[in-house]
């Protein structure tokens, strides 16, 4: 197996693993945040504006972790620097 195939295999598998593992944590976090927000809303409907705004901001914070993983996996697939390097080397030969 030459290095080109090896880089391709490792990049693709890592991209899948990145988004698969990286989305577990934010999923649990968002579930907990929404559950607590719903409890708070049921107890204090008057504070719905504050709770909703804080929930949205918090969800954005939690979600950004998953987004980082997504960006990393997209870079690994579409804009992989190591892959480009190997391609440039192969073209230069």
């Amino acid at each position, binding site marked *: 197996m030459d290095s080109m195939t090896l880089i391709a295999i490792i990049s693709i598998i890592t991209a899948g693993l990145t988004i698969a593992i990286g989305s577990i944590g934010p999923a649990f976090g968002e579930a907990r945040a929404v559950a607590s927000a719903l409890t708070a809303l049921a107890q204090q409907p008057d504070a719905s504006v*504050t709770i909703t705004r804080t929930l949205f*901001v918090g969800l*954005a914070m939690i979600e*950004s972790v998953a987004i980082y993983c997504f960006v990393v996996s997209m870079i690994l697939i*579409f804009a992989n620097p190591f892959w480009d390097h190997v391609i440039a080397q192969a073209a230069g030969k």
Partner: protein
Amino acid sequence: MSLSPDNIIYWQMGFFKLNATIVFTWGLILVLVIGSKLITRKLSTGLQRSRWQNLMEIIVTGINQQIEEVGLENPQKYLGFLGSLFLFVAVASLFTIVPGYEPPTGSLSTTAALAICVFVVVPMFGIEEAGIGQYLKAYTRPTIIMLPFNIISEISRTLALAVRLFGNMMSGTLIIAILLTITPFVFPIIMSALGLLTGMVQAYIFTILATVYIAAATRARKPVQETESENRKNNTNHMGINHG
């Protein structure tokens, strides 16, 4: 398949490239400027108002109210900056219903530019509110040991702001592009409707985060006259906000 509209180049002369990001950004700016000029050309204070003026009033009072609820006392002062941010990001994602349009916020260059605007504006408002000495002093709170961490958090939240918006918009267009090759008929429509919702939520979040950062910069910079407990609460608030 391209990762961002940066790769679509319409015109090139030497070093200067006119890519889709720049073209669509200019288009959005034109739409926003001409649209608001047309709406505000004949404002009326009577009961008979045009429907566009009603829309404008809803948007402006809504943004004003949101800014005030975050805790900035004088929302008119911040309305220009935060309102422009919200309108640009919202309209950029709203126009995805037009075929052939690529949202400029799906490029890291645009979102980085917007995030850098926030990065520059937050200290400006903070200094304006409390003076440069008080502002710089706030970086050493609660102790001098926290100085590097405060600076790191300032930079990392700017990065987070840029990457979050970029990731959300890019994933929206990418998912539709992938689905078009698998299930070309109905399902992409549902996903683009979801993309509209995500775009609106992201515009709201981007604006509200910028507002929260400005509020933290102006609130935490107040001279130390508060009681100890209030001070601690402010500091924990400040730290909590900075996690991005």
